[in-house]
């Protein structure tokens, strides 16, 4: 349904166009839930914005590759095409949606305004189900499990708690029955208790409405809970992509393995964070972007006389054991091994 191929995005602030997303390929099938995992600065939000055509608001632009939705090419599509796609086909819940609601309008007015503006495009009955815009807005709020719907309709966002605001943003995203919902860090700004509820809600909505979900998070545990398959992004490039099961059981990339270890820290007890920090945009290392922090490189590095990790460009993911991995030494990682616990095999 959604096919992103070799997508690259660059910042347009400088003429050189500093890359933030580099040759990323991913796909979302009908009804599938895909998780996109990456640290801040890995380019995941930029990737989302490319999917709804709002990169220009963030001084960025697609510099290569393609985005196809139901066969239609969206890269370079005019604003009129985007207006048809946004909300109706691809809905997006932006990051930090605590500030995601119009501060000067009541919740009811924001939703009815959205529902009414859809009227001109599709048959009236299709959106409102024959009822008024107001009753449809009420239905949407009930769908996202907002209590006391009638009073919330008449309140402005600053009167609502963070979890409620997040629910309203989701309700608005659902208003036109999109076939794909992108949720960018939907739980980050919320406290843990509310986080779990929002995740439950997303999971339930996906089943109930039969839509696809692209869930973006820095937290692998969050994504694992909801998604069928997972794409791991690091410094603008895909490190590993595959089924949730395969990645959790047997990661074939040292970075993912580190994330898995971090995500399962409750079970394993005492986890070691991946050493170092993610490189900032514009300061990506040559070779594999992860190598300066990679324990596998450090370990095989002694024998890595050819410098296969640290030179050249970021390797593109290739299929290894039923998933895609960008690690040249994927086969060096043993069964069930992380980059720390596993034995190193003979590289190359």
């Amino acid at each position: 349904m959604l096919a992103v191929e070799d997508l690259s995005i660059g910042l347009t602030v400088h003429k050189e166009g500093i890359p933030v997303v580099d040759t990323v390929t991913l796909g979302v099938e009908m009804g599938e839930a895909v998780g996109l995992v990456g640290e801040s600065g890995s380019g995941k939000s930029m990737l989302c914005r490319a999917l709804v055509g709002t990169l220009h608001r963030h001084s960025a632009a697609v510099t290569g590759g393609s985005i196809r939705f139901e066969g239609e090419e969206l890269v370079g599509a005019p604003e009129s095409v985007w207006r048809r796609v946004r909300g109706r086909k691809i809905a997006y819940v932006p990051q930090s949606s605590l500030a995601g609601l119009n501060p000067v309008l009541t919740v009811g007015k924001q939703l009815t305004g959205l529902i009414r503006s859809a009227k001109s495009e599709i048959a009236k009955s299709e959106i409102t189900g024959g009822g008024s815009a107001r009753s449809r807005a009420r239905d949407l709020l009930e769908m996202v499990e907002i209590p006391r719907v009638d009073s919330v309709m008449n309140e402005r966002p600053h009167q609502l708690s963070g979890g409620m605001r997040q629910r309203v943003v989701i309700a608005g995203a659902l208003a036109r029955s999109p076939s794909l919902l992108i949720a960018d860090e939907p739980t980050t700004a919320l406290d843990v208790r509310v986080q779990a509820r929002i995740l439950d809600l997303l999971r339930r909505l996906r089943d109930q409405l039969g839509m696809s979900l692209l869930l973006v998070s820095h937290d692998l545990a969050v994504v694992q809970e909801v998604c069928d398959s997972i794409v791991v992004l690091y410094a603008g490039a895909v490190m590993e992509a595959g089924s949730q099961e395969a990645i959790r059981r047997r990661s074939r990339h040292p970075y993912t393995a580190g994330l898995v270890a971090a995500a399962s820290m409750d079970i394993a007890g005492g986890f070691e964070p991946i050493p170092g920090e993610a490189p900032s945009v514009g300061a990506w290392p040559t070779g594999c972007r992860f190598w300066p922090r990679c324990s596998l490189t450090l370990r095989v590095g002694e024998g890595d006389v050819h410098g296969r990790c640290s030179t050249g460009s970021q390797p593109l993911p290739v299929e290894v054991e039923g998933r895609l991995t960008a690690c040249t030494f994927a086969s060096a990682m043993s069964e069930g091994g992380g980059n720390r616990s596993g034995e190193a095999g003979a590289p190359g």
Partner: protein
Amino acid sequence: MTTETVNAPAEELEQRKERVAAAVARRLLRAVLVAWGVSLVAFALVRIVPGDPVAVLLGDLASEERIQRLREELHLTGSFVNQYLGYMSDLLKLDFGRSIMTTRPVLTGIGDTLPVTLWLTGFGMLVAVIIALPLGVVGGLTRSNLYRLSFNLLSSALIATPVFVSGVLLLLPFAVWLRWVPVAGYEYAFPQNIKYLILPAVVTGIPIGMIFGRVLQESIRETYTEEFVETGLVWGIDKTAFMWRYLVRPSIAPVIGLMGYIVGAYLAAAVIVETVFVLPGIGTYLVRGVLARDYPVVQGTLFIFGFIVVAVHFLADTLAAVIDPRARVMS
């Protein structure tokens, strides 16, 4: 159903109420202080300015004895402090005294002239808003650099043009050559007074409209970067509704806040505009009072100016906060 809170916790609400109450109390205190400060400055200034009301009134040939008698009649004897205390105690009783020149109560004089100035202010503000809305909205939404550049240049030029220059420049074609409007004068009845007010309102409204327009333009551009604009965009709200409700509406509060300041500046401008167009407003009243060293008139007028500025400022801030909750963080 969830136990998740719908509203911000009750504690937070309570705190917010307290904050608002404290802010209002601060405002009121400030209003009283400003009005008092203005009255003090007014009192001191008219006395520091060289010249003597009695000499102006009686002329050079009056006898010393007559001057002394009038001085006592007008309570102009005694020390500065004594005079001030007398003035303040009258003021607390809302007694502004009588004009030295005309012996009419100052409050009556203000009551006669203030409505003219309020008409002018209201009319001028209307002109300003009519100019500012389209210019600011287009400037905020357009990506055309040419528009922005020309708007900035034009507005700078118009803001920098003194009112007495633009007033005279407009009088010549519209009042003298075309005779569309009278050159000067006033009629104290609603529809008739408009033809006397049009030119002065346009002359003062244009530079203020340019200022509003620029503030609105900047405000819209700032709003454009906000997160909720992205939400509106990806929700797929139709273009007109999106521009109006997501870009313009949330950008208006700063302009309304600014109006509070501008009304104060407008009173200062009224002094000049009313002189140029010979309007019997409070500005003219003040100028005559100053020229005649008519102490009670000057003091009373400036006190009213101070009061109006503080009151309008308060109203504008309150209105801005009602329209936009983000403006509620009161200083």
